[in-house]
């Protein structure tokens, strides 16, 4: 499968792999124990500090996270011209500090997202996986930048300036 990694020399490269026709996996190592990395994914005041980095060019208006099995989450972004876009779903697995899984329900064919945190020698090996129900669903969602819909086309331009 095709894999893209950063040039060597980056502290901890982020790798993206299209694992199958329905699944995309992102991997990264963090210099911290799993419980801290897990905390950053599950406490709203921490999560909002990194999920929408400035360079992405979006403004997060609100974030709700009820991190327990069956609990809901909701992110609302400002699209300008008083338009907003919401992403939402439910947590289906919460196993601190090693595993977190949620649904993406803003579209009919959203992925199931699973994040695993594996601690080795004080570092956390993180994998982020998006598993779609069909190949077409993956193409539709990933093709337009991480599940963001077509209206986010301007985002592409911004992302090109990153890295």
């Amino acid at each position: 499968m095709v894999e893209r990694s950063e040039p060597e020399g980056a502290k901890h490269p982020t790798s993206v792999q299209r694992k199958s026709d329905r699944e995309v996996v992102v991997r990264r190592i963090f210099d911290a124990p799993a419980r801290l990395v897990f905390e950053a994914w599950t406490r709203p005041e921490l999560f909002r500090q990194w999920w929408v980095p400035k360079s992405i060019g979006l403004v997060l208006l609100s974030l709700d996270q009820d991190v327990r099995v069956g609990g809901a989450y909701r992110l609302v972004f400002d699209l300008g011209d008083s338009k907003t876009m919401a992403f939402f779903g439910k947590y289906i697995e919460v196993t601190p500090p090693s595993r977190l899984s949620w649904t993406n329900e803003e579209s009919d064919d959203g992925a199931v997202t699973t994040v695993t945190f594996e601690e080795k020698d004080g570092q956390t090996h993180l994998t982020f996986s998006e598993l779609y129900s069909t190949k077409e669903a993956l193409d539709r969602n990933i093709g337009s930048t991480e599940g963001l819909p077509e209206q986010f086309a301007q985002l592409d331009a911004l992302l090109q300036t990153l890295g």
Partner: protein
Amino acid sequence: MVQYSSRLDISFAALSDATRRGVIEQLWREDASITELAERFRMTLTGMKKHVSVLEQAGLITTEKVGRVRTCRLGQGALDEEWAWLERYRRMWTARFDALDKVVEELKRKERDDGRKK
């Protein structure tokens, strides 16, 4: 093995091989004959012909035979579509994870300061 149907999938399959990615990079710089490619990648002519055929079927390169020499060149816009989304996705995650790094560092620092390091 996954069944590949769409053009994008054929491209990904074609690019899953390190030699074929190397050939693409090589052709990015300049056109080359199959013989030149075989020499550069230290392969038999037959082996290289197979790789070239896969890349050609995927629409990533085109070949043209003039006399006894078959010249390979990059297909028009060959990699734009294929690399673009993976690269875009990776860049977004790189930015996100760099930001996450900072948050995690801050958590570590706080924990040290609080003297509750475990």
